[in-house]
């Protein structure tokens, strides 16, 4: 169905149709992020015992995911190489934190 792209449009025309959303959509995501911020601040005053950090970090991860997926357009990233770089970043961060904590959290003799 797509119209053939005119070559006159010049060789700088880059496909954008699938990478950006409407203004209203971005504002809606922003409102969701603000609601999550209010939620996480409010939940901090409720005593959930050991689950306070869990809930706070879960909400933070949801917020970060919304920003990465919809604002940073990783879904629209055309290059597989770029996706590999993004995934490797989080992979090595996970190694850094999980292996360091696996060490420090199991030093029962100290």
């Amino acid at each position, binding site marked *: 169905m797509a119209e053939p792209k005119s070559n006159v*449009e*010049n*060789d*700088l*025309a*880059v*496909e*954008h149709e699938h990478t*950006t959303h409407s*203004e209203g959509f*971005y*504002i809606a*995501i*922003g409102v969701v*992020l*603000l609601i999550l*911020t*209010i939620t*996480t*601040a409010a939940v*901090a*005053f*409720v*005593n*959930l*015992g*050991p689950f*306070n*950090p869990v809930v*706070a*970090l879960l*909400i*933070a991860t949801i*917020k*970060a995911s919304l*920003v*990465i997926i*919809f*604002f*940073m357009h990783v879904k629209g*990233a*055309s*290059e597989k*190489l*770029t996706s590999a*770089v*993004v995934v*490797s*970043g*989080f992979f*090595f*961060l996970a190694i*850094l*934190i999980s292996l*360091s*904590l696996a060490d*420090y*959290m199991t030093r029962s003799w100290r």
Partner: protein
Amino acid sequence: MEHEAHNPALLHHFADAQQQKNAASLGMWLFLVTEIMFFGGMFCAYLIYRLAHFNAFAAASQQLNIWMGAINTAVLIVSSVTVVLAVKAAEQGKRKLLTGYLVVTVLLGLTFLVVKGFEYKEKFEKHHVPGASFNFTEKFDDNGKQIPVNPKEAELFFSLYFAMTGMHALHMIIGCGLFGTLAVLAWKGHFTPGYFTPIENAGLYWHLVDIIWIYLFPLLYLISRHS
């Protein structure tokens, strides 16, 4: 003319605009990955010391101003929205709208820094800045039980607090300079619907700085409030 006429924004060593854009995007993401690892090291240090000195870290964390932190989180989220709207406006070739969004982004960034400044001022007044005049007499409020803590361990918390929020604030200052420059370029008509890669990549940087704050806020301000 030596060369075939083409759009001046397409550099000679790229086959086409898509390739040029992909190369720029790849380079930007590589940089962002180094940023993730840079801040990741500090997050990791924070988690390790929090486990080692839990009571002192909780007591020190309870001294942070949760409202200033929450307001700053909201300010950054709104600025991230103005950044994506700027990218959208650039894509549609709306020059004035693009400039407007970029200027609003800078203003929100400066708002963040001003609130941060007031927060730091409060820390100086309470002698919670690590160094010779550091003084910490507050106790860890464990659901009403007042537990005294070692001030040296609380000082460690504030060292990490200033290192992490300070590095984040430095990134915000750089971001404000970046977006200020882009606003001037946008006003001069430097960007077209065919070429606005700098706006997109600066936007990626801004969102990453936002994401770092999204994690700093709960880790520093929230998780010890009631636990």
